[in-house]
């Protein structure tokens, strides 16, 4: 691009329009966190389920304690050192980040509260996960994530007819459909954008 090329007024407007469109259609999320947390939740759900079936009782929920110990440092290390920058950050990206932080707080409260009154946290986790996943999908205009949110909502209702221990299997299924699949699609989309 020439340094001081004289532009006509029409050329100026065309340039503005084309540059705004260039930035607007860029997806900054690369799906890594969806896949990371999806895999961790599936592992913990299944371990919890098998430990309970094996008769470990209250101890069978122990794998969940290790999930943030692995997930939080892995997420931070990836962001700081490995993530290939999309080059831009939009207001939507920032809003989605704040939404997931709020989800983290809500998730902690659900676990604390359900532990205190001795009820299964799974339906409530599925409900708030559905909300945050669906809202993120709407903001990104990314249909696989919106569909993932709907899956979480349906599984929340399905919990009504399922024993608390079997709800863990619904959680693993929900996370596979609602996190892992949209995460893989988002990752492919992000890579194809980067290769253009």
């Amino acid at each position, binding site marked *: 691009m020439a340094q001081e090329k004289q532009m006509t*007024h029409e050329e*100026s*407007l065309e340039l*503005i*329009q084309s540059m705004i469109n260039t*930035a607007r259609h860029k997806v900054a999320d690369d799906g890594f966190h969806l896949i990371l947390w999806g895999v961790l939740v599936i592992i913990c759900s299944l371990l919890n389920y098998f430990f309970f079936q094996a008769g470990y009782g209250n101890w069978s929920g122990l794998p969940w304690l290790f999930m943030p110990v692995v997930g939080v440092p892995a997420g931070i290390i990836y962001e700081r050192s490995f993530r290939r920058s999309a080059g831009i*950050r939009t*207001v939507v990206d920032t809003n989605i980040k704040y939404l997931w932080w709020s989800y983290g707080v809500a998730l902690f409260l659900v676990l604390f509260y359900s532990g205190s009154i001795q009820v299964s946290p799974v339906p409530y986790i599925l409900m708030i996960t559905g909300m945050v996943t669906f809202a993120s999908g709407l903001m990104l205009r990314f249909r696989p994530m919106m569909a993932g949110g709907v899956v979480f909502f349906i599984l929340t209702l399905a919990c009504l007819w399922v024993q608390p221990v079997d709800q863990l299997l619904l959680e693993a299924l929900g996370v596979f459909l609602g996190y892992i699949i949209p995460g893989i699609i988002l990752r492919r989309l992000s890579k194809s954008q980067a290769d253009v």
Partner: protein
Amino acid sequence: MFKPLDPLLHSELRLAVMSLLISVQEADFSFLKEKTGATAGNLSVQLNKLAEGGYITIEKSFKGNYPQTTCRITKAGIKAFEDYVNALKSYIGKK
């Protein structure tokens, strides 16, 4: 009476940079370089002119082991860009 066009914005590369920055919160140097097709040297000079005019801020940091230059548009930059677009519209509308 036509409003004069802001000379800081009425340059192809600087206008392209401002148009990219107006629709995002921040953009890094390599993104601006790729989308404008400018050379690193030229882009760097034009970014500094915009920063000296108070239209953008430039932040240098490190991501892993690599240096990263992040640019953001300022409130003064947004106002100048809007004034520039309005001036352009008045020129084109009265032709």
